[in-house]
């Protein structure tokens, strides 16, 4: 059972992620006017934001320690923040600054934070075999650390997903496979791309325990992840979890989402953050003043991170030529 202090912490972390994504969204668009240009402004390039998917990151990472690993997909910020990646350095990377996690080389889809064993990739599903390898290293070194591979429901139709599950199960490695099912692979709806409603059924094909978690509820996600992470830590091998969540915004910023129709309204109404806030306030776990105070505090932290990024120096042009080889 989740205690009330944990609930408040869950709310704070989800509010922190949302504040971050909202601030990035505002800043991303702010200097792309009047002609919207994907390559313009202080934050250029593609921007995939995770509003709505905070419960997955927070419920999962509450079970992890710094030495546990995560491979995240192209939509990585919520997982990075929940895993403890430094917000300032991550923001500086997204602003392409020398103080960023990767000195401006990686950008928002290629964040690497080795101290937190956090990485992400812009190629769908391709982080999953990497997590298997991290689990191999943990297992061979005799640690009880766990590697978590996170990918979207669309990625579960990639060969890499199936090969990674097979290997992890065959070798009984400490991996937790998390499928974030937000219902959309860019514009392709889940039910037009995946013939089964419950993707966790695929776990049985590889002889591993699996579960689908409905409701985008941080506490239910926490409990499901707890079981899976504990199993991996104890040497019980991998687990597949398919977690139902929601993509509140476009696939990338600038996506008009005409393909979503009425579903977009339903998604907006299912926003997990105000729902959880209301739940805690009405249960008397948090006063409205305390909730507002938390939101003010996380917004201040985000502002500070963005200020740090904006005031950081750009990399030197000649740095483009270094880091090709170690």
């Amino acid at each position, binding site marked *: 059972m989740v205690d009330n202090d944990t609930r408040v912490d869950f709310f704070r972390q989800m509010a922190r992620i949302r504040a971050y994504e909202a601030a990035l969204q505002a800043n991303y668009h702010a200097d792309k006017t009047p002609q919207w240009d994907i*390559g313009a402004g202080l934050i250029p390039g593609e921007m995939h934001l995770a509003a709505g998917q905070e419960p997955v990151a927070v419920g999962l990472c509450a079970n992890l320690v710094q030495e546990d690993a995560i491979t995240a997909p192209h939509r990585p910020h919520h997982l990075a923040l929940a895993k403890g990646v430094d917000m300032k350095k991550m923001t500086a990377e997204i602003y392409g600054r020398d103080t960023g996690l990767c000195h401006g080389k990686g950008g928002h889809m290629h964040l690497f934070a080795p101290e937190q064993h956090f990485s992400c990739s812009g190629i769908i599903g391709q982080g999953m075999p990497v997590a298997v390898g991290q689990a191999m290293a943990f297992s061979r070194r005799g640690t009880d650390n766990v590697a978590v591979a996170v990918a979207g429901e669309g990625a579960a139709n990639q060969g890499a997903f199936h090969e990674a599950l097979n290997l992890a199960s065959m070798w009984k490695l400490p991996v937790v496979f998390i499928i974030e099912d937000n219902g959309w692979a*860019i514009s392709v709806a889940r039910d037009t791309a995946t013939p089964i409603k419950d993707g966790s059924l695929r776990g049985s094909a590889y002889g591993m325990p699996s579960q689908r978690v409905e409701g985008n509820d941080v506490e239910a996600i926490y409990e499901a992840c707890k079981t899976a992470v504990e199993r991996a830590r104890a040497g019980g091998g991998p687990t597949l979890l398919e977690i139902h969540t929601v993509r509140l915004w476009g696939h990338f910023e600038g996506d008009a989402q005409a393909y979503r129709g009425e579903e977009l309204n339903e998604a907006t109404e299912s926003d997990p953050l105000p729902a959880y806030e209301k739940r805690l306030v009405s249960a008397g776990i948090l006063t409205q003043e305390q909730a507002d105070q938390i939101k003010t505090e996380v917004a201040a932290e985000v502002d500070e991170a963005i200020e740090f990024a904006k005031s950081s120096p750009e990399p030197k042009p000649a740095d483009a030529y270094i880091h090709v080889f170690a």
Partner: protein
Amino acid sequence: MTATLDAGTRRVTTAKAISEAIAQEMRSDPEVFVMGEDVGPYGGIFGSTGGLFEEFGSTRIIDTPISETGFIGAGIGAAVEGMRPVVELMFVDFFGVCFDQIYNHMAKIHYESGGNVKVPMVIMTAVGGGYSDAAQHSQCLWATFAHMPGMKVVAPSNPYDAKGLMISAIRDDSPVIFMFHKGVMGLPWMAKNPRSIGPVPEEEYTVPIGKAAIAHEGSDVTVVSVSISVQHCLDVAEELEGTTSVEVIDLRSIVPLDREAILTSVAKTGRLVIVDEDYKSFGLSGEIVATIADKDPSLLKKPVERVCYPDVPIPYARVLEYEALPTRDKIKAAIAKVTA
């Protein structure tokens, strides 16, 4: 058939030119169909299939799961049975997840079968950078495909060639990799050279695969390029008019490479600049230099200048990416060096 361009010809984006070419081929040939990620109601992430779903519906414009090995392999299967699939690989960078189907199957089946089996399919794919999409979404990679025998590889620089090359590609009995640079598509949401919108006849016409174009005639220096870099070269050639006479060769096709067009121009000018957004080493620019060296190195009065993407992954930060990308200033400097 060659279409005529007159002052009254309407102007469209390269994206529109491509989707129109596919639509016209689909109307006349029921064997043509399209599949790929987000090619349906979305119209292709870079607009290459805009309007097709509305006209042809979901049986001929097929949104796929994120399963490139699966649907590119399925394209091969349909093609060997006589259909003419146009399959979109959203970004060329994603070839890594499906290359076995492409180079060991699509490209080799005709040869392996002693010419008995044809694979008349098109893979169209977005290439190129310049908008901070970083290392996994900004590459050109045409030389990677060109290196493997059995695939034709085309990369238009403008809407007219895009339409004509797409029609040629669909009608070709060999597999064709059709590479459109995002920057030439004329997208409303990406900075673009005005050359990305241009005159395109409404009727069907072909641009021959394997035939370069002299995009700008000149006599002092030959500048060979392809895809978006041609646009930069033309800007420079026009800017230098009156001081340096620049001949810009738009290759349009990488395979087959129009070596004669390169040799003829270099024989005239004696000076060569190659501009290529793909990686510098082991690629197109080296192949062009080898073409001269094989035939007659004495054609060259000065060493060749190569303005290419250096041998580094593509960085995210704008200042780093533009340090590495071919730009007008670098092209001008290279021309100045070979004509000094």
